[in-house]
């Protein structure tokens, strides 16, 4: 299993998939761990992958790239990926990259499990 360090701080099963909680800044030094952890999670074939970013105060383009890769893999597998609890700085980089128009973004975990 890939070493994902402490970047993935929790997982919770839901009826049609899994919620993954991510923690800390997602930058060039940590995005490979995020990528490995999330790609490992979709190996189990969840219909819905919810990524809770409540504890992520900062993300750079390498973090976005990791999420795009997971998004494409999850789409290819016929599953759904939903992001939730984005802090303002993180939402800002999604808007700059226009990825807020591509990803499903929910306000919280509860909403993410129903969209």
């Amino acid at each position: 299993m890939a070493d994902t360090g402490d970047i993935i701080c929790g997982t919770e099963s839901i009826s049609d998939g899994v919620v993954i909680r991510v923690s800390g800044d997602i930058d060039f030094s940590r995005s490979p761990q995020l990528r490995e952890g999330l790609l490992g999670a979709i190996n189990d074939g969840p219909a819905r992958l919810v990524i809770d970013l409540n504890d992520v105060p900062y993300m750079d383009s390498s973090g976005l790239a990791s999420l795009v890769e997971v998004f494409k893999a999850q789409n290819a597998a016929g599953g759904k990926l939903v992001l939730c609890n984005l802090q303002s700085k993180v939402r800002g980089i999604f808007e700059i990259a226009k990825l807020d128009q591509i990803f499903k973004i929910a306000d919280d975990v509860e909403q993410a499990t129903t969209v």
Partner: protein
Amino acid sequence: MQDNAPFAIQIASQPRLLCAVRDAVERLAGQWGLAGEDAGRVVLAVDEALANVIRHGYRGQEDRPIWLKLWPIQQGDRRGIRVVIEDECEPVDPATIKGRDLDEIRPGGLGTHIMRKAMDRVEYSRRVDQAGMRVEMEKLNSPAEAPAQKG
């Protein structure tokens, strides 16, 4: 003015050092009149520029030098920051450094686009009489965020 930066550091090309640089840039941006989203955009642009040097310029080598200099700037009532980042990377034609088309949904290639969106000015050049590249960026605070107090 360019040679008397009030903040000038040399760092090694190690990704795990970027968090410390982000903290320093955010604090100085705040001191020099950039708050909230403006300060966050400067932090993002500097972080992206440094990551580009490490990833593309030095191809992941962790023992190469990067120089970061910061100045406060002012235009009328608006205050802001000038950033210069220099390295010893293999020089490239500055005109070839462009962000990719955002309509293409794929990982990677977003850093330069983000820098240009985050800052008012981003200018790449080759270092004069020295090996390496240089990027100079500026950002002034948004008029709505311009603080009344100066100093």
